[in-house]
Each structure stands twice: as structure tokens, then as C-alpha cells.
């Protein structure tokens, strides 16, 4: 090697000896799987779900796979760092893929934490955001979930699965959440989790969607309204199930699986009055019926389709009603007006909060049935 390389090598060696850098050995660090933040007595309470490192083969017996540590601080970073006063290891916040926001904090002011979250390079912006409904984030993190060692990995997984299977709530990433928080003409939402009683003590359940109005939480959408929200803003994950009353006489229900949803929203400006024109196009598969009627006939398909469309439309309307009641533009309609009619927006923008509750909608739903899975006729019980 040349002379320079030797000098460089020496330089690196010297650096190594004086130890110019901060290394973080893994066995001196704690892996933070989930982060919870709440407001308690004017201070921010930060809770971390620390995953206990354990090899898959070596089950640690009765010990839970995690430990929840929490500390209070007057700001988020203070709270995060105060953890070190009671925890011997350096928390690796960058691993956190769940952020649980306490209801109290959400209702007070998100500005308390937003700046810190955006600025802190080690808080992952693709973490999932949820709101702890009527419970404290600390308890959510402290709950054991069946089959999963950590609630912080379980909740995002639950969100993803239910969206494909049930199609009620939508996963919201921190980046999306902050983005909607900062942008004019759109307000953020986040799915809510709560604790319910079960045989083994407490269990986690997804319950409603938290709706924010600006920096504060305004209220919740129930599961029907949440479904409506998803119909209005379908994400990347397709799927879901709707349950409609049987089209003919009788008490039966019919289950339809939604396989594709697509929504187009246009803002029409008719003499100063904003009308949102919403067009939903969906496809579904016939899944089940609880009765024994001979539903699957060619002439019945349009009937089924129109009932589905009605159901979807009413879900949407319920959601819109609730959002307008809460005065929270969670659909980003303001933004749509801005992109489609910048001139109108310049006029209306400042008062959008007042205008939004009165915005009229025209909803058009097209729904088509495609397949019927492995049977074509239902059973005839004889």
C-alpha cells in the first residue's frame, strides 16, 4: 500500500483508540417497539414498550416479552430522555413502529408533539398512528395480545388484516398524519384502539376512528362511519365485507365481499355553492346468505347490486354527516377545491371551516357483482 494509505490506516487506528464516536452496542440498548404519548396533569407522559430480547427457542416462562417504561416531561423530547432516569439501557426509538396518542393529548393540542416528532430523526415516519380511546396509551402498550408477543407489532398487523377482511379502518402512517395536519384543506384521522375485558384480563380492540379538527381531536367515527370514510377515500389495500338484508321477503342477510373500490371526487362550483360530486365504482363477490332463497339468478344480480350500492351510499352519507357535524374536513375536500378551483379556494379558503359543514354532496355509486366462489346455487334444505 502506498504511504498515504498507511497514514490513513494509522489515522483510523488512532481514532479507534481514542474512541471518537459513540457506538451503541445492542446489549446496552433497549429496543423500543411502540411509543405512547399522553397528556397527564399538564405534562407529557411518554411510555415506551421495550421488547425483551429473547431467542425464539428460549421462552422466558411467565415473564412477558416486553416491559413498559414511562416518564413525564414538559416536552416530548424531555419525556423521551427522562426514560433514562429509570431505565438502564439506551432506548432505540428508531425501532418503534407504533405511536399511540392518548385521548387527552389528542383533545388538547397536537402541536405539543408534532414539531418534535417531525424533527427527531430517530422517530420513524412510517410508524403507524393510533389513538387510545378512553384508556391511556400506557395501558394499551402494557396489554398482552394473544399469539403476539408485542402489542406494538400486533396493532399494525390487526389494522392491516381487518382492512383486507372487514374493510372498516384504515392504517395511518405518521408521515401521512403529519402531512394532513400541516396541509390546509384536509384534517387528519387515526384509527382508535381501546381495551375490552376478556377471559385473560384486558384485550385490545379496534374501536372507531378519531377525527381531528386542525390540531385537536373533535370526536370519533363509529365503525359504520369509518367504513364510509374508507369508501370515500379507498387506500391501497383492497377488500372488505358488507352485509346487506336479503333482497326478498324473509329475515336472511347476504354477505358481499368487496374486491375493488375506486372513488373519484370532484368539486363543482355552481353559483358560489360548492357541491362535491362523488363517484364510487366498486366490485364485489357474492359470499353468503343466511336464508335459503334462490338469490343467484341472473335477473337478481342488478337487485343485489343496487342494494349494495344503497348500503355503501348510506355509509358514506353517515360518515359525511358526522364529519360535517364535527366540522372536520377529513376527506380533504378543501384540498380538492384548491386543486380543481384555485381561484375559488383563494376566496373560500380562510373560511373553509365554516363552509365545510354546509357543503352539499352528490353521491353516485356503481357496484357490480363478479363471482360467486365455489358454489353457484345455495343449498336447498330438504
Amino acid at each position, binding site marked *: 500500500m502506498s504511504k498515504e*494509505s498507511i497514514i490513513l490506516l494509522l489515522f483510523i487506528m488512532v481514532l479507534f483508540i481514542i474512541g471518537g*464516536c459513540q*457506538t*451503541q452496542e445492542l446489549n446496552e440498548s433497549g*429496543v423500543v417497539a411502540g411509543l405512547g404519548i399522553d397528556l397527564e396533569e399538564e405534562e407529557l407522559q411518554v411510555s415506551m414498550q421495550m421488547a425483551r430480547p429473547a431467542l425464539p427457542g428460549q421462552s422466558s416462562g411467565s415473564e412477558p416479552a416486553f416491559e413498559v417504561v414511562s416518564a413525564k416531561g414538559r416536552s416530548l423530547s424531555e419525556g423521551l430522555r427522562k426514560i433514562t432516569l429509570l431505565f438502564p439501557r439506551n432506548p432505540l426509538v428508531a425501532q418503534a413502529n407504533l405511536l399511540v396518542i392518548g385521548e387527552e393529548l389528542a383533545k388538547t393540542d397536537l402541536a405539543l408533539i408534532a414539531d418534535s416528532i417531525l424533527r427527531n430523526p430517530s422517530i420513524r415516519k412510517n410508524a403507524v398512528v393510533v389513538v387510545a380511546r378512553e384508556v391511556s396509551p400506557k395501558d394499551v402498550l402494557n396489554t398482552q395480545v394473544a399469539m403476539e408477543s408485542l402489542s406494538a407489532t400486533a396493532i399494525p398487523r390487526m389494522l392491516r388484516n381487518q382492512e383486507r377482511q372487514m374493510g372498516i379502518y384504515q392504517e395511518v402512517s405518521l408521515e401521512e398524519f403529519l402531512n394532513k395536519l400541516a396541509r390546509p384543506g384536509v384534517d387528519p384521522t387515526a384509527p382508535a384502539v381501546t381495551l375490552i375485558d376478556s377471559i385473560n384480563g384486558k384485550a385490545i380492540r379496534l374501536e372507531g376512528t378519531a377525527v381531528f379538527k386542525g390540531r385537536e381531536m373533535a370526536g370519533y367515527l363509529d365503525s359504520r362511519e369509518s367504513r364510509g370514510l374508507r369508501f370515500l377515500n379507498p387506500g391501497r389495500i383492497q377488500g372488505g365485507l358488507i352485509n346487506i338484508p336479503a333482497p326478498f321477503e324473509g329475515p336472511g342477510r347476504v354477505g358481499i365481499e368487496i374486491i375493488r373500490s375506486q372513488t373519484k371526487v370532484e368539486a363543482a362550483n355552481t353559483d358560489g355553492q360548492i357541491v362535491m360530486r362523488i363517484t364510487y365504482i366498486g366490485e364485489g363477490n357474492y359470499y353468503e346468505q343466511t336464508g335459503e332463497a334462490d338469490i343467484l339468478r341472473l335477473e337478481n344480480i342488478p337487485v343485489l347490486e343496487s342494494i349494495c350500492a344503497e348500503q355503501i351510499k348510506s355509509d358514506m352519507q353517515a360518515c359525511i354527516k358526522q364529519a360535517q357535524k364535527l366540522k372536520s374536513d377529513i376527506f380533504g375536500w378543501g384540498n380538492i377545491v384548491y386543486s380543481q378551483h384555485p381561484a375559488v379556494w383563494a376566496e373560500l379558503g380562510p373560511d373553509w371551516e365554516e363552509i365545510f359543514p354546509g357543503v352539499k354532496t352528490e353521491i353516485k355509486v356503481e357496484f357490480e357483482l363478479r363471482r360467486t366462489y365455489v358454489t353457484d346455487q345455495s343449498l336447498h334444505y330438504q
Partner: protein
Amino acid sequence: MRYIKNKPESKPSPQEVIHTDIPASLDEIRSQLDTLYQFCSDIVIREFVFGNPETRGLMVYFDGLVNKDEIENNILRPLLLDIDMLDVKGDLTHRDIINDVKTRIISPAELKGVKTWDELIRRIGSGDCALLIDGYGEGLVAGTRSWQSRGIESPDNEVVIFGPKEGFNETLRFNTAQLRRRIKSSNFKIESFVLGRITKTDVIICYIKNIAPDSMVEEVKKRVNGIDIDGILDTNYIKEFIIDDNKTLFSQVMHTERPDRVCGQLLEGKICILVDGSPMALVLPSTFTDYITTPDDYYTYYIPASLLRLLRFTAFWMSLLLPSLYVAVITYHHEMIPTALLLTIAASREGVPFPSFVEALLLEAMFEMLREAGLRLPRAVGPAVSIVGALIIGDAAVRAGLVSTPMVVVVAATGIASFVTPSYNASLVVRILRFGFLFASAVLGFLGIMIVLVIVLLKMVSLSSFGVPYLAPLAPLNLAQISDIMVRRPWFVNRSRPYLEGMRNQQRQGNGKDEGG
């Protein structure tokens, strides 16, 4: 004890004799031979008388290097017995005896006259026998070489699945014969040199005229001629003298034991150096490309060969960077690892007393030792060592909590990857650089790795092997040729040779039927 100071100067010293011509008188020859080969028990000097009038002759050769049958049948028998049957009836009066002997009497296929002791010594040293006749200051050297040598075996170090299995051995002539058998063109040149003051080793430079650039051939000859050393025992002696930059780890010359590989390279305009007594051929110029290519590539169908080359390329980078990347990631950049994986790693690191870097260094050093031990050990013990090393030490270290399991996995994977690199020279470089990267990653994490990488790259682009840039098709970029590096170009599109500065015939297929160029 007293030293005898005034030693009688009756005889010249051997050193003086060497540089003189062979004298005419046989007595003088005999006495000079005795001086030269004093204490040499393996020399055979046979004096005899032949013809009419009786002429004295003398034969010198080394026992064990010559074929005695041949000497007997082709030289001694014609001289002593058959001479009478010639038309001169053994009458040598007034005749140029030596010329007669040379042209009419003795019958070895290879015969040459030499005039100096220097040359005579060299020739009989390589197994020829010399015939000296009274009255002529000239020796006749007959090619009677024949000695016990290793047969042509398949090379241990460069194993191929398909393709020829022959390897070079220690006898230069066999080696050149193997080359000549493969390249029959008269443009295939084999130039011979003698190097080494004492060993007087035969060295040959071979190339295909018109394909190998003339300037490069001249340059190689110049550098080889410039070597002045007492002995040449292996091609590496020559390599260290002739490479462009001798302050670098990167090998600029390729070693190979395979004649087919040498021929393949010769056809690309490269030059090969062979040394008597060594089965390793030097092929030059050699660039970074040779680190990842093997002859197997060209004997296998091109699609799997290309994929294998890709695999080898990956393995090269893995063997270079894996431990340092691992150390950098687990000491600096944890956020890159998915949580589940991080937890597994963390669990196995729990309770390990060393910092990750020290752990990696320990295991790497251990691995290198095992590898070196495996090389030097007798065959019978080798497997035992690898079992002890791999299983017992590795497993025990993990159980004792001295090292973490992922680190063992990483080091083992690195080891496997380093065996994928076909060239031993390359794997040597990689093994050394790996430690450099490890240090850098411990100090500055990924940043350190990249900075060292820049420096290594800088060194590599600055290197050249006989005027060919080291990273040749990549930097300077040559789009036409880079495709043959990333994948193995199928033969039917491989129309031209890799370009070398000054190459006269670049065409491999089509365009004129000119054989050698």
C-alpha cells in the same frame, strides 16, 4: 591453526574458467572439468578413443538427468563401433573430425555446438550430454534430457467441472508442448531466456504475434531481461520484478496452472511467462476482471455461466464487506434492521462481554488461522482440524457466551463467500482488505466503510498492469466490453477480443480468414 596463505596458483579458479572458451586440448579440457566439477559426485565423465588414427574424445553428463540408452545407442555406439562401417572406414586422417562426427556419425535428433564453458555447463545441467573431441575447442551438445518428473495431472488449485483437466508440471518443455498442442499457428511465439546467475533457469515468454501488442511484448522482454538475481525457483520471483506497481495488494499478474486457461488468455492478446521448475504460469496483463472469471465460465453454456458469474460477483462483495457491514449496522445503524430481526440479534448478544467489533475481529482472526492451518496440515489431519475449528470452537464459544450466534453466522458466511472467489490472489487481497473495512466500520460506521471504499477504488483506478487500466472495462468505461464482465457473453456474439492498446487484430470471428491475425 594456521591458515595457508600462499596457496599455489597453479590452477585457475572455477569462476575464472567459466567465462573462458573451451580449450582445444583434451587434457586441458579434462583438467578444467575437474576444477569446475570438483566435489560433484553426480557428474559422469567418460573418456574414449575412436576412429583411425585414434582420436581421443570425452563425454560429460549428469547422472539421472539423461537417457543413458540414447547416449549409448546414438552417440557412443556410432562413434566406437559403427564408425568403421562408414565410407571413410574410420579413417579420419586430414578430415574435419568434429564436423564429420556432427553431420555423419552420431545420430541424436537434437545436436548443437557450443564454444564456452558457460553454455556447456548450462546445457549439461539441464540434462544434455556434451561430447568433446581432442583438438577442437568446441563441444557437441546432444539433447538427451530425460528425468523422472511428475506426470501431467489435473491442477489442484483450479478445479473445473467441464473442460480440460490437464495442468502444467515442473518441466518447461512439457508445458510448452501442451501450449503448442493447443495453438498450432506459426504466429504463436515462444521466446526463451536464461535467468538466474546460479540456477541458470530457463524462462520462456510466449504470445501470439499480431494479437499481443508488440509494444507490450517488447516491454515484457525488457523487464524480464532486466532481472539480475542468483536464482529463480518459481514464477513469483519474476512477477515481483516485472509488475508496474509493487506497493499494492492487488495482483497485476494472473497465476494459473492450466494450459487451456493460458491459451484462452493468449488469444485475448495476453502474454504468458513460464519458468522451468514451476507449474505456475504467469499471465499478464491481468486486471480486476480476472478476480471473478474462471475458465469454467467459457466451458459452460452461457446462461448458467452468466448467472454463476453474478453469484460470484455477489460473493466477492460479500466476502469483502459482510463483517464490516454487520458491525456497522449493529453498532451504529440499528434502525435499518427490522424489529423482529433486531430482537433476535439482541437476544443472542445479551451477555456477550465483547463489543461487536472485537467479537468480529476475534472470529475473523480465528477463521483465518483455521484456514491457514488447513492449508499446511497433512491431508489426514486436515478434516480433523476443520471439525475441531468449526464445530467445537464455534459451538463452544457461542455456548460459553463469548460470541453471539449471528456473528458466527456472518463470519462463516463470509468465509464461504471468500472461497467462491476463483482466484487465490484475489481472495488474499480480500482477506486483508476485510480487516481494513472492519476497522473503519468500527470507527465511523457506514461512513467509514464508504470512505475506505473510495480510497480502495482510488487505488484501483490508479493501478495499471502493463499499461492496461486495472478496472479496465469499467473505468475507463468501455460499453462494448463491459457486457462480457457482468455476464458471460455467448460465443456467437463474442466477435471481438477485449481491446488492448496496440492490438492489431481485434476480430475473433468473421471479417477475413487471416489465421493468427
